[in-house]
């Protein structure tokens, strides 16, 4: 059997290995503090998966994924904050029932755009819809005018800057530079206990696997092939009658929605959201994860995110001075020497050996093809 559902054999094996690692190995070997950290890193890998689809396959480099990560995170944080600032909890404020930072900024009633976030279904919908709508506007405006490549990257970067300035500047409505902090419960369920952290971790992994599967669906569908064609020869695709702008907008929105889901999971697991996850620096770091993992590999994106973040934590705990040198050097090395990242190294050096092992281990039956790991595109 060469294909499992819509996955190639090698992809299915890779996915199973990842699932085993995330569901069995890591929870058994790490304490809850570290596992929570892994969970936090995994939320970035939602963004990285989106970037693989959008940048690796679609050729659209967005330097503003932090915008969507942040929007998703802020939507979730607004809901949790409203729940945490019930009238009983905020009795000491001059206006009870509104979030504490609003009270500090002399705001006396809940702003209109906070009101709908009292409802959980609305929040869940907003996490997906708000980034998608913003993306649709940006994408339609730019791709229709055939703005691409570098210009698109710079404009998305500017939007990220605008959003950060806006969040920091409008302290009374957004919590300013500190962000929205002190989030406690989800529908009365305390999200800060160890037990809750375990549950949230597994929910996060499940969502991640679902997103990965979805990514593979896109990758193997006709849409995925059009994306690659668009990346490599945009004009030919256009002349063949496809709406290039439409496809680009779609994949950009998809990446944004994935990022937003990651952001919402981030807020749930970490317990706060702040503008430091929205701006230009985090957005570019997310691109780094993707580049290190391999911009053409969905699984690579997850591993890249985990590795870079683990290295970041390890380095900044023991050699804070060296961390930026390491990250910068890694980045330059990846771009110059390994444009396809970890996945590229795996495909060209490790995968042939594994395929060789399988060949030797199993006597090839006549008639049944020996599974060959297909080289990456």
């Amino acid at each position, binding site marked *: 059997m060469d294909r499992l559902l819509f996955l190639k054999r090698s992809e299915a094996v890779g996915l199973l290995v990842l699932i085993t690692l995330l569901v069995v190995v890591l929870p058994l070997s790490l304490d809850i503090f570290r596992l929570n950290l892994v969970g936090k890193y995994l939320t970035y890998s939602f963004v990285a998966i989106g970037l693989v689809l959008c940048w690796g396959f679609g050729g659209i480099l967005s330097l503003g994924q932090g915008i969507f990560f942040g929007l998703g995170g802020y939507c979730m944080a607004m809901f949790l904050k409203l729940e945490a600032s019930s009238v009983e909890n905020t009795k000491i404020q001059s206006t009870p029932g509104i979030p504490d930072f609003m009270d500090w900024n002399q705001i006396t009633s809940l702003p209109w755009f906070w009101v709908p976030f009292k409802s959980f279904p609305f929040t869940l919908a907003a996490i997906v819809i708000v980034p998608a709508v913003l993306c649709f506007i940006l994408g339609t405006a730019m791709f229709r005018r055939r703005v691409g490549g570098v210009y698109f990257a710079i*404009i998305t970067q500017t939007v990220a800057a605008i959003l950060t*300035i806006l969040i920091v*500047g409008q302290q009374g409505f957004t919590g300013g530079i500190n962000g929205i902090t002190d989030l406690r419960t989800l529908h009365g369920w305390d999200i800060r206990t160890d037990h809750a952290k375990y549950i949230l971790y597994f929910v996060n992994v499940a969502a991640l696997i679902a997103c990965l599967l979805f990514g593979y669906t896109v990758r193997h569908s006709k849409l995925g092939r059009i994306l690659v064609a668009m990346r490599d020869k945009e004009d030919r695709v256009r002349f063949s009658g496809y709406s290039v702008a439409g496809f680009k907008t779609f994949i950009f929105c998809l990446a944004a929605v994935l990022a937003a889901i990651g952001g919402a999971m981030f807020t749930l697991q970490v317990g706060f959201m702040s503008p430091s996850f929205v701006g230009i620096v985090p957005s570019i770091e997310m691109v780094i994860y993707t580049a290190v993992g391999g911009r053409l590999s969905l699984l690579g994106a997850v591993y890249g995110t985990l590795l870079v973040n683990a290295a970041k934590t390890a380095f900044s705990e023991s050699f804070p001075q060296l961390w930026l040198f390491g990250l910068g050097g890694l980045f330059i090395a990846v771009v110059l020497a390994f444009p396809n990242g970890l996945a590229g190294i795996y495909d060209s050096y490790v995968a042939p050996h594994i395929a060789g092992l399988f060949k030797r281990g199993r006597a090839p039956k006549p008639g049944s093809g020996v599974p060959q790991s297909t080289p990456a595109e």
Partner: protein
Amino acid sequence: MFYGFSITDLTSIFVMQGFAGLILFSVYVLMALGLAIIFGQMGVINMAHGEFMILGAYMTYLTSQLFLTFVPVLFPVYFFVAMIIAFCASGALGMLVEWAMIRHLYKRPLDTLLATWGLSLILQQAYRSVFGAREVGVELPEWMMGSLQVTDGIEVQINGLFVMTLTLGITVAVGYVMYWSRWGRQVRAVMQNRVMAGAVGIDTEKVDRYTFALGCGIAGVAGSAFTMIGSTGPTAGQLYIVDTFLIVVFGGAQSLLGTILSAFSISQTDSTLEFFLSGSTAKVLTLLGVVFILMLRPQGLFVLKIRK
């Protein structure tokens, strides 16, 4: 928003804010000029441009310290020496970076963005290790301090005037080099049609290297000028990089005139709005305006028509 101001007040406000905007404009132009050469002409996205600028600023700081310690007599003119040192240091670093990194990436412009971002992280940490995390400022010589009283409500700072004059001089020099000198013709020829330029005997690799170095050198001078009006920290470069890219894109990447006009309009809008609204709102409105205009006119204000 004009309520409560008399006509004379308003005029003074506009003139004073206009002048503040002009200083901002000068810094923007200096930063954007280097980037317009590197990004506009060569197509390289240099995210480390801000760090080259900061290198110039630190060089100026070092020079001022050296002059104070060893030749206090010459202190009033240290700035001119500092500028040359800043230009040479940033230019040399630029040349090294071009040789080690950029020249392998000319065919992959988006990857230059990622690689130079890595470079900017390394440089930032290097500055932090060498000069410390705190911001440093230079001491201005006597003649640059103070301000000129033009009328009752209007006064202009001398260091601001100096930075403006400097900007004007450098802009004219860059314009001359790029558009009238033989070397500038070679640069533009290589950027417009590399193969053909090579065929008529231009050493394209050498042109690339010196163009990149020139762009970085100008960033160094910009950093030098920057010390006249603000202090320098390891991450100061990052604050300006997005603005600068936006200016170059808004002006039309290949036009120096466009770069100057866009720097002018962005800085003036920003500083005029800043007086009436809060700083962050002014910035947001300005940037939103620019993004909006870019969506309507993605190629920027000025376009150079060339055959691809």
